[in-house]
């Protein structure tokens, strides 16, 4: 039981009488790649928002590493080691690629309130930043202004930035959305390469990616958990096929 890194108990969120997330009990094992899937509007993004406190839960509680984080602030959660990415790409567009990563590295340096120091003290972070960029294949773009990157590279940068925090747990919301086939593959590779020593919770509609990466799946429907298990079990469940996968699922994964 101790290897549960994240747990929710009866997590619930209502919007004006509409229950978007309904008594969800999520259990994520340490070291897993765990996928959250389900029809549109099932509440996946809302669960992410609840976990990272972008929304306060109506009721229920959240445990991270055994600690109750239900009332902890969003930025503090990130500092505790659970970091998210966004459904739309999130970078600092006017800053250079290197600076993007440095901003994240700076977080652990503890000098972020030091307005009296020269920014040169940040140069000691360059080496680590370049390593991270290298790991996602962006080293040659280090000095480029981020907004000039293509979409796929921005996603890669986002992941590098996230990794800079060296989080125990990563939350990825549709990491491959809007990407061409090549980029999808590249991101999938990347996720596999960083899973070492980490837990990853991801929302993804691309079944190919899910089937390839996920150790475990939780299917949400209308805010509640429909079923859980590995890909084979879940995709064989007729309720999942009816509500989410449709008949094309097999074809697509095979392709």
């Amino acid at each position: 039981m101790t290897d549960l890194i994240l747990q929710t108990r009866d997590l619930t969120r209502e919007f004006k009488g509409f229950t978007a997330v309904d008594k969800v009990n999520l259990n994520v094992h340490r070291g897993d790649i765990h996928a959250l899937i389900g029809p549109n509007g099932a509440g996946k993004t809302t669960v992410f928002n609840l976990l990272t406190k972008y929304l306060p839960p109506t009721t229920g509680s959240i445990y991270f590493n055994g600690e109750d984080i239900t009332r902890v602030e969003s930025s503090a959660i990130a500092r505790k080691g659970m970091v998210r990415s966004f459904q739309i790409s999130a970078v600092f567009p006017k800053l250079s690629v290197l600076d993007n990563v440095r901003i994240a590295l700076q977080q652990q340096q503890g000098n972020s309130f030091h307005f009296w120091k020269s920014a040169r003290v940040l140069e000691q972070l360059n080496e680590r930043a370049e390593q991270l960029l290298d790991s996602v294949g962006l080293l040659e773009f280090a000095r480029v202004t981020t907004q000039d990157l293509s979409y796929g590279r921005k996603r890669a940068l986002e992941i590098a930035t996230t990794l800079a925090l060296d989080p125990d747990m990563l939350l990825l919301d549709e990491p491959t959305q809007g990407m061409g086939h090549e980029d999808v593959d590249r991101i999938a590779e990347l996720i596999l390469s960083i899973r070492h020593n980490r837990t990853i919770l991801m929302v993804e509609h691309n079944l190919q990616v899910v089937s390839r990466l996920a150790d475990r799946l939780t299917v949400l429907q209308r805010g509640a958990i429909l079923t859980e298990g590995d890909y084979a079990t879940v995709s064989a469940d007729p309720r999942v096929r009816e509500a989410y996968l449709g008949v094309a699922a097999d074809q697509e994964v095979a392709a």
Partner: protein
Amino acid sequence: MNTLVRSATAGLRLPLSQPHLGSALLLLAALLAPALIYPVFLMKFLCLALFACAFNLMLGFVGMLSFGHAAFLSTGGYVTGYLMINSGITPELGVLAGTAASALLGFLFGKLSVKREGIYFAMVTLALSQLVFFFYLQAPFTGGENGMQGIPRGHLFGLIDLSDNLAMYYFVLAVFLIGFGIIFRTIHSPFGQILTAIRENEPRAVSLGYNVRQYKLLAFVISAALAGMAGATKALVFELESLTDAHWHMSGEVVLMTLLGGMGTVFGPVVGAAILVAIATLFSGGELGNYIHIIMGFIFVTCVLAFRRGVVGEFGHFMHKNFPASGFGRPQ
């Protein structure tokens, strides 16, 4: 707000090759200036320039428009003035006290306002500063409409008599340089780096573990403190503090100075302040005085339509476009 901030981030940086030479020349000019120009005029300019730079720290570098900075300017002035009149402290301590008082007020304002964004932030700060205005209007020690008169300039460190304009000028110049230095350092510090990140993409900064409200709050307090420092110094220069400094027009004026000079640039507010002070002085008397509002109006309209980046911003943009190697106008 964001488009504006983005388009203006191209800041003026001195050519990297000779930054020291450039600064040395400017400093020399500042030291010699009172030989040519009436010192009180220069002092007024320096105080307003510091005020605008402090304001620009919020607008240009955090991307938040405070429409209540007059409250800090006037608090600096009144607190310093009150102490100079009633407690006989030395002027440098007076300025420090005014700065501290504004910082405290800034903390209070910030606590109430940094949660809000965009126009709502502007409106909350405006409303709070109107309450401060009302307080200064009614409080017995400020002299109401008459202003707080007869503030002594005192003796610097108890030694140097500041009632001499030239001595006072060098004191003001020192205060300005200190204030400007703090702002410059803040912008180019690890903290400034985070501010830029917040301006660029706030949710992302949060997700990286930064408690953005605290960063905004600290930036606001620094900005308020320096605005207060400007006000404190101004009160000493004129030996007077009045409601003009607390009125919302003053909050508007600092926006104008910043936009005119170029927001989000380090020197923009200084240039903007120079322009406004110069116009006000040139046109305040004589025949043209009757047209001062009309002339100002035309300047604003032209500025927006033709030089949107502000004087310094346009210059930086021009240099960046035509002489990319010069190091001007690089994104910060």
